[in-house]
């Protein structure tokens, strides 16, 4: 990768960072349109660099760019949307796009597990809590980000630092013959089933980790039950409004 290309990549991430900065909710300054234009510009420039700069690899299918674009745009909306419900829905979009990318990488089992666990279980819990703990309208803490400039600077510096070195990733790695490859099950097998191979490696090489994961889930369940049964002192407790009668008069509840 030539230095010019690296600087172009840094420029793309600076543009994207500016876009996300303007997209973040910042009170009464509606500049989201500017951020959207900047962010889309960064995406277009990035795709142009990859296509015309000779960086794109023939081994990467067009589906990668499609799903990667969906994932990045949806992730930006997750962190910038002012309504938590929409953030959660965009997060489902990220999960589905990442699952598609995992299929492209040959991890079918993990892709399906991702959709079932994330989009099916975790997101439902999130939506449930959002419904339970949402206040009417959009409260001030959703409309005003905290230190948006420093956060964007840190995040996009990290991105640019990683992407600037991306040219040094080897095309393929030849493993030293021995150790892990000697055990047949750890090898990625194109002919066999991915689920079968994952099951074998999890039940043989990583069986201790599997038991620890089960214990961790059990401990988390006990902790969540203990948390939800805890009586809270209700400092900011507001008594519920009395129910209204048929014609709007207040009636005593029973």
């Amino acid at each position, binding site marked *: 990768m030539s230095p010019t290309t690296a600087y172009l990549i840094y420029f793309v991430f600076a543009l994207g960072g500016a876009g996300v900065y303007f997209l973040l909710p910042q009170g009464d300054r509606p500049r989201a349109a500017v951020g959207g234009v900047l962010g889309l510009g960064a995406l277009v420039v990035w795709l142009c660099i990859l296509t015309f700069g000779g960086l794109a690899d023939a081994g990467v299918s067009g589906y990668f760019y499609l799903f990667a674009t969906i994932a990045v745009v949806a992730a930006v909306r997750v962190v910038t949307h002012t309504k938590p419900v929409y953030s959660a829905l965009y997060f489902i979009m990220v999960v589905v796009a990442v699952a598609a990318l995992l299929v492209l990488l040959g991890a079918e089992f993990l892709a399906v597990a991702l959709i079932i666990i994330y989009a099916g279980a975790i997101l439902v819990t999130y939506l449930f809590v959002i419904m339970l703990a949402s206040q009417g309208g959009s409260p001030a803490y959703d409309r005003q980000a905290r230190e948006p400039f420093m*956060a964007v600077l840190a995040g996009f510096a990290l991105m640019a630092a990683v992407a600037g070195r*991306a040219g040094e990733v080897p095309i393929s790695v030849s493993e030293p013959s021995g150790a892990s490859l000697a055990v047949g099950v750890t090898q990625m097998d194109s002919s066999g089933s991915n689920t079968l191979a994952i099951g074998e490696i999890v039940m043989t090489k990583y069986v201790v980790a599997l038991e620890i994961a089960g214990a961790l889930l059990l401990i988390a369940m006990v*902790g969540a039950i203990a948390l939800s049964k805890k009586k809270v002192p209700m400092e900011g407790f507001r008594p519920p409004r009395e129910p209204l009668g048929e014609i709007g008069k207040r009636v005593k509840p029973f």
Partner: protein
Amino acid sequence: MSPIAEYLVLGSILFALGLVGFMSRRNLIVMFLSTEVMLLGVVVNAVAFARLHHHLEGQAFGLFLLVIAAVEAGLALGMIVLLYRRGGTLDAEAWSLMRG
């Protein structure tokens, strides 16, 4: 560029976007959604490296990452509900008493 490198860049982008969200948003629920985006970036990275090395270990690692995500979501949402019942707000700034 190596085909794996593009997946690694995508993983780092997802991770850093989640980091931006975690640091800058004030709603507790959105903060934890951002950590889930970060975990997805890590999953992409792990599976891409599994592809590079022709191993299954990255995929097994991704499976355990899902377990961690489930545990984190369960405990964090329990605590968020508890804090909401106690304070009536989801603002992270409302609980910054220990920051000094």
